[in-house]
């Protein structure tokens, strides 16, 4: 009964949603006539004043950098909330749940892979303004590196203090750069560094700095998330 009702409701909802998007149209210009979409401005300005190769990066970090600040905050909050929800007085380290008993091949392999993953992650976020990828992607990759280590080694532990210091410093860097821009150029997150040459590593002004900060922050936060959840050994798990 309930299922049928839900299916019916969803059918109507789906119909309207689909029709709406069919109206918009796929793969062709869909903006209303007479409207100059901001994406054109973004694309134009990405090259000229910003000298960033990756338009997504320029949007994420500069045009809509405020969103990114909020997004980083969301992750930060998620870690905080996770810690708060799963908080219990810590008894001892090493009581975390083990997903599988890693063989020596896995452990050795992980050890080998770990630096490579970290390097990849760093590369991704340092080159965020030049190529696909950026702070988030790089941060996530680094976090997966830690995840690998956490899974492979039963008593591998990440210092909570270190994580939170990295996280805080990265966050402060982001917000601080924004405030510097505020003091320098009058608006928050103003790009106050020299633009450089397109497709050079040192280009795009504050964008790489912010993306590096974001990378560190995301890495620390996601590692924190995994670590917190992993440490949550199910007590009533019969």
């Amino acid at each position, binding site marked *: 009964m*309930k299922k049928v*009702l*839900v299916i019916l*409701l969803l059918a*109507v*909802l789906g119909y*309207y949603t689909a029709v709406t998007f069919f109206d918009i149209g796929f793969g062709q210009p869909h903006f209303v006539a007479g409207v100059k979409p901001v994406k054109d401005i973004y694309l134009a300005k990405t090259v000229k004043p910003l000298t960033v190769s990756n338009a997504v990066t320029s949007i994420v970090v500069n045009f809509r950098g405020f969103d990114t600040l909020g997004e980083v905050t969301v992750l930060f909050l998620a870690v905080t909330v996770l810690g708060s929800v799963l908080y219990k007085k810590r008894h001892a380290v090493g009581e975390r749940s083990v997903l599988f008993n890693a063989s020596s091949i896995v452990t050795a392999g992980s050890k080998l892979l770990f630096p490579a993953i970290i390097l990849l992650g760093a590369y991704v976020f340092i080159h965020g303004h030049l190529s696909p990828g950026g702070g988030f992607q790089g941060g996530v990759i680094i976090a997966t590196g830690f995840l690998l280590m956490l899974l492979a080694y039963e008593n591998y532990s990440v210092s909570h203090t270190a994580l939170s210091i990295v996280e805080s410093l990265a966050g402060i860097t982001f917000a601080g750069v924004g405030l510097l821009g505020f003091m320098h150029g009058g608006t928050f997150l103003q790009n106050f560094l020299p633009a450089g040459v397109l497709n050079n590593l040192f280009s795009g002004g504050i964008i790489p700095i912010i993306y590096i900060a974001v990378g560190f922050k995301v890495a620390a936060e996601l590692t924190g998330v995994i670590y917190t959840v992993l440490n949550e050994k199910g007590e009533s798990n019969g």
Partner: protein
Amino acid sequence: MNTIYIIFLIFLGGAVFTYFAGKIHKVLQDILFLVSILVPAYLFFANVEIGQNVNLTLGGISLSWGINYFSWLFSLIVLGLGSLAAIYAVGFMKGEKRRGYFYFNFILSIMAMTGILLSRDLVSFFVFWEIMTWSSYLITIYNGNKVQSIGIKYFVFSAIGAYAMLMAIVMVHHITGSFLIGDMIHAYPAMALSMQIWIPIMFLMAFGVKAAMMPLHVWAPGAYSNAPMAYTSVFSGALSKMGIYGMTLVLVTMVNHIPQGVWFREVLAWLGGITAVIGTLWAIQQDDAKKLLAYSSVAQLGYIITGIAIGTELAMLAGLFLAVMHALFKGTLFMVVGAIEKQTGTSNFTEVTGLIRKMPWTFLSALLAIIALAGIPPLGGFVGKWMLYESLITSNHYLLVIVIFFASTAAFLYCYKFLFGFFMGQEEKEWAHVKEAPAVMVLPMLIMALFMLVLGTFPGIILNPINHGLQALGYADSYKHLWDTSIILNSWGNKVVLQPILYSIAGIFLFFIAFLTWKGYKNTRFISTKDISSSGEVPKEDENLTFSVGFMQPFYRAVEPAMRRQIDKYYNAFADGLEATFEFLRRIYTGNGQTYAIYVIVFVVVMLLFKDFLF
């Protein structure tokens, strides 16, 4: 600063300081309490000039405070009775725990009533009206959790009334763009017919609640009888008059201007008449003096409503005179009951008897008040009722006269019961220790009794201000023609000096009482109710053989079928049904998160389906 501001400041500050003074010293609290009632009362009568308004703007709304002759008349009731009741309250509340609470609300309700009378605009009228409601509500529930439902009933009815009034107020504001009463009166004749009808109805709802008019009276008996008696005298005596005040204003300033006004008047008059009958019949059946007086208040308010609803000069005079009288005698009677309750711990006739020698002064004031209530000359009640009958007859409401006459005759039964139940009868050992109430309590009662005596003899003292008040409302100067319009007095000649006749009647009456008392005193044998050895059967300890038990049993049997259908029950059934519906409704919140998510989808889907209709 204008005196009006000073009055309100003293009231407000007095209320707050009185509340907290209890933490310092009890006597200080009493003194502050009296000061914060009596000083404003003095200032009011000494310094507030009639017809002078103060204007102020609050929250973008222009308010206006001032007084005219008509409201001055009611302020006599409020502040006069309020002051006396305040003095009484000091004695009554002695030794009670929550005195600060009581005093605080007492002062506030007096302030609110004064404010109502001073209001020349609807917003401050409403504000003071609501303050009056909640302060009196807070006193009503003074006696603990048993009266919670009674208090809530009172508040709910008041709120319904007040909100109806609020609706009327904002509609008036919508039409006139102003909250001033003067503007409303001015604009009323030009309003659309539906507004002309609905606005008075809504106002009358509010005033009808406070005046305990028939379908809206169900809160009154409980609230009157359960509030502390020191307040009930004000509650029944003055607060209910606010309803009368408002009703008069509505009737005179609005209803008079439309042709349908006749119907308003007829309906109101009949509602008043029915209220009187029902109240009286219920009053007779009570064994508790507080309840009895409460119902009797309802009945008396019925007369008053009838009087002002008829609306001829004579009827208005009668109604307003009765209003003043009612404030006096009902105030006194509630004080009497309070004194008895204070001294004996109960107010039940079937328990307390034979107090006449224990509390003679209380008895005296009760006697005078009862005489006034019953409308026996030479006290004021007679004058009022006389005028009421006459106005009814002269305006051709013969059926209504019968109804009112029935009610007022039946009232004798409970008057008798009250007087006899408490003061006459055997003296029980149980009450042997009972002493007269302290002077602060007796004095206000006696003062009021004196007033009743004076008013009965010289009704002109109060009829003159009423006349002034009515003139302020636009009535012709009727007082000097009063005796012209009076048929019966007219047949005796235009200039009858009433006083000698009344006094001779009273003198003979008193003489007989004195004679009988003196005669009977020698032969009286004081026995307990348990001491009925003559009948050969010895009653058990717990049997209540006070004669008040089953008093007027045949009468109950006669009216029992009519009494069974209480309006109260319908209201209760309605409320229960409503709560059951609510209980059912809130099960929408099933506690299951998925259900809530489905609600979201339902909401979206419904909106999507009806989107062309909605937007």
